[in-house]
């Protein structure tokens, strides 16, 4: 203590203290900031992004512009903040690149390889922020409990059935758009659709529907479509199909029987 007390007045005390505090600040800073990626990975990322930029220039820029800023005359949106998930979804489901200008890009066969999709996604992700491509743990429904599945059904009916129908058979929207059928759509694509809101579909962000709830909804959709129906399911389209069958199969066959009966008389 005495040493410290006496040393305070030493000529070198102030500069030394300054040095010491600078060192401390530097050390804390180094601890708090995340470790920067190793240079090797940085190079790989840069290569991926560059490959993506090239792919983008040849396949997408005609509509979305060379810097993905969007071209109004093509009706193609700005992609700087859509995120990797949006690109992965749009290209994986074959919606992009759009073949011809329609009100809504249809789902079709995807012609890109996994690597190319990853490159395109990395390029667009590098332009701004937006949802990243999900890990399997984010959408995989295998750990959902039986009760969770039922809850997923409730969530699905609250959030999705207005457009996609009660078991995801799809439905019509104004101006020639449709909410497509969700039967047979991958869990990953469902997650991505919810987080990026393709076309007319609203974005369901993780703040309102966390990943666990997405898993429950995916589990419900899978199970409800695997449950056997009580006879011909008529496409799960509801009462219109039932009315059609009542008239065609029901009244139709009964009228045929009536005609048959009316020609049967007692034999003389």
């Amino acid at each position: 203590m005495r040493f410290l007390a006496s040393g305070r007045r030493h000529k070198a005390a102030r500069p030394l203290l300054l040095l010491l505090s600078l060192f401390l600040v530097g050390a804390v800073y180094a601890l708090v900031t995340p470790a920067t990626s190793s240079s090797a990975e940085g190079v790989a990322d840069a290569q991926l992004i560059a490959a993506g930029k090239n792919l983008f220039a040849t396949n997408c820029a005609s509509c979305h512009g060379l810097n993905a800023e969007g071209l109004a005359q093509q009706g193609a949106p700005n992609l700087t903040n859509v995120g990797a998930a949006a690109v992965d979804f749009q290209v994986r489901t074959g919606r992009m690149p759009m073949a011809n200008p329609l009100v809504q890009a249809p789902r079709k066969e995807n012609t890109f390889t996994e690597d190319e999709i990853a490159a395109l996604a990395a390029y667009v992700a590098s332009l701004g922020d937006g949802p990243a491509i999900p890990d399997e743990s984010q959408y995989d429904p295998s750990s959902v409990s039986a009760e969770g599945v039922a809850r997923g059904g409730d969530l699905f009916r609250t959030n999705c059935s207005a457009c996609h129908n009660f078991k995801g058979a799809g439905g019509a929207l104004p101006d020639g758009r449709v909410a497509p059928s969700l039967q047979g759509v991958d869990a990953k694509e469902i997650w991505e659709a919810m987080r990026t809101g393709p076309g007319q579909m609203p974005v369901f962000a993780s703040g309102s529907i966390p990943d666990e709830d997405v898993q429950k909804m995916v589990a419900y959709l899978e199970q409800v479509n695997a449950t056997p129906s009580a006879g011909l399911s008529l496409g799960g389209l509801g009462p219109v199909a039932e009315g059609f069958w009542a008239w065609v199969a029901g009244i139709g066959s009964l009228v045929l029987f009536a005609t048959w009966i009316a020609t049967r008389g007692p034999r003389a």
Partner: protein
Amino acid sequence: MAKPAELSPESPAMEVRTPPKEAAPSKLAGPATWVDDRIGLAKLMGNIRKVFPDHWSFLLGEIALYSFVILLLTGVFLTIWFKPSMAEVEYAGTYELMRNVPMSEAFASTLAISFDVRGGLLVRQIHHWAAMLFVAAMTVHMLRVFFTGAYRKPRELNWLIGVGLLSIGLVEGFAGYSLPDDLLSGTGLRFVDGLVRSIPLIGTWAEFFVFGGEFPGELVIARLYMVHILLVPGLLLGLISAHMALLVYHKHTHWPAPGRTNHNIQGYPFFPIYVAKAGGFFFIVFGITILMGALIQINPVWLFGPYNPAQVTAGSQPDWYMGFVEGAIRIIPNWETHLLGTTWSWNIFLPGVGLMGLLFTALGAYPFIEAWITGDKSEHHLLDRPRNAPNRTALGVAGMAAYGMFWLAGGNDIIATQFHVSLNAVTYFMRVAVFVVPVLAFIVTKRICLSLQRADRDRVLHGSESNIIVRSPDGGYSESHAPISQGEAYSLTRHPQLEALTPNGEKVGRTRQRLSRWFADGQVPTPTAEEIEAAAHHSSDVAAIEGGDTPAIESSETAETGASH
């Protein structure tokens, strides 16, 4: 029309002259006599020999009757387990995908019937298919009555009873559809809630009256249950009995044919032949309904989930018979008036309350309007062939076309997704089609009727095509015609000619005169006896060319006997 008994049963003469029962040579012995002494079985047997004509279209009403019986049978089964309560419970039954989901007791008990009661799902599906067939059969039955003119005097009252049956049939079906309290039935109730509220002035009050407070409240399922299992079936039973009683009293109508007149009835006796046929037909209807219930899924409420006012699903539609109202609501422009802080929702009132009112008023009034236009006060027991009343037939088809367009519009979203067209395009198309298609249907139908009449006339005058091509000595080809049988000629010329009313002082006003001229207009005259005579000479010439010197009339008789074997 049945002749009233010459002596009224109250007449004292009746008692004096009736021989004592014991003396009557009753063929019924033992228990039958016992019953007869108490309820007059023998008299019933008199009715049981009533004659019914045979034609497939006379069986359509029976389909409705049998579906109603099926509805009663399956409905009783369902009432054993159904709980008409809106109290909230957590589901604890066997259907995993609903585990612990909060729902009303009504919905939970419907799931229980579907998954936990043996045969419950089958019975539910049969009940629902029977309901769809019930209304559909009533509709086609009504159409057959309309197009054959069977509603004319003396059967106007039975037509009115029929219109009553159809309208409360819709109520019955709607009430049943609402009971399970699933997402679609709740959405349907929401729709009706909107209709009720759109009624000017009393709307809100009426909503509170029906739902016991604001929608959805806690009462409506219990109330609909009462309507569905007691009130409306009671009314239906009463009206069906009256309908059948009047049918027996008036006797059935029949098609014109030799020996069938406006004053008689030809056919098989009710017992035993008609009973056998009708009984057999009951089992066919029951069988088909069971097959549909077993093979085709209907109203899968477990997929819709319990009703929750925050939810709605694509493809929310009512059962088919409410589809025309749904369609009208879907295509009407958004008309609303705001007046002194109140909203007048014409966009809901006109297509909903207005269209239903219009349909049933028009149906109910039609027989009287037609009778007024034609001034026809005579009784009709012979049916019209639709072609012989071209304006009525065309009106009917135009009405069906309008109904059909509204109906299609009710499924506009399904049409859009299934046929890959734009929902807006379907809607705009329907807005026009609802007005244009009936007019086209009218014109086309009338043309078809007239050309069919012309074909009939040709057939009577020139006979049927014999399929024999004759080459004349100078090389020309012609097809010879074989005269038709006298019976057929009778059937084809039997129908009365429509005549316009002649001005008759103040009794026939100008509008009425014009309408009657329009109704009778454009008819192909039935050949007169002289024309038939003249044509027969002509055709015997043809027969001569054919080489035979037999008079045509004889060959026609041979043809007839040949055909009747």
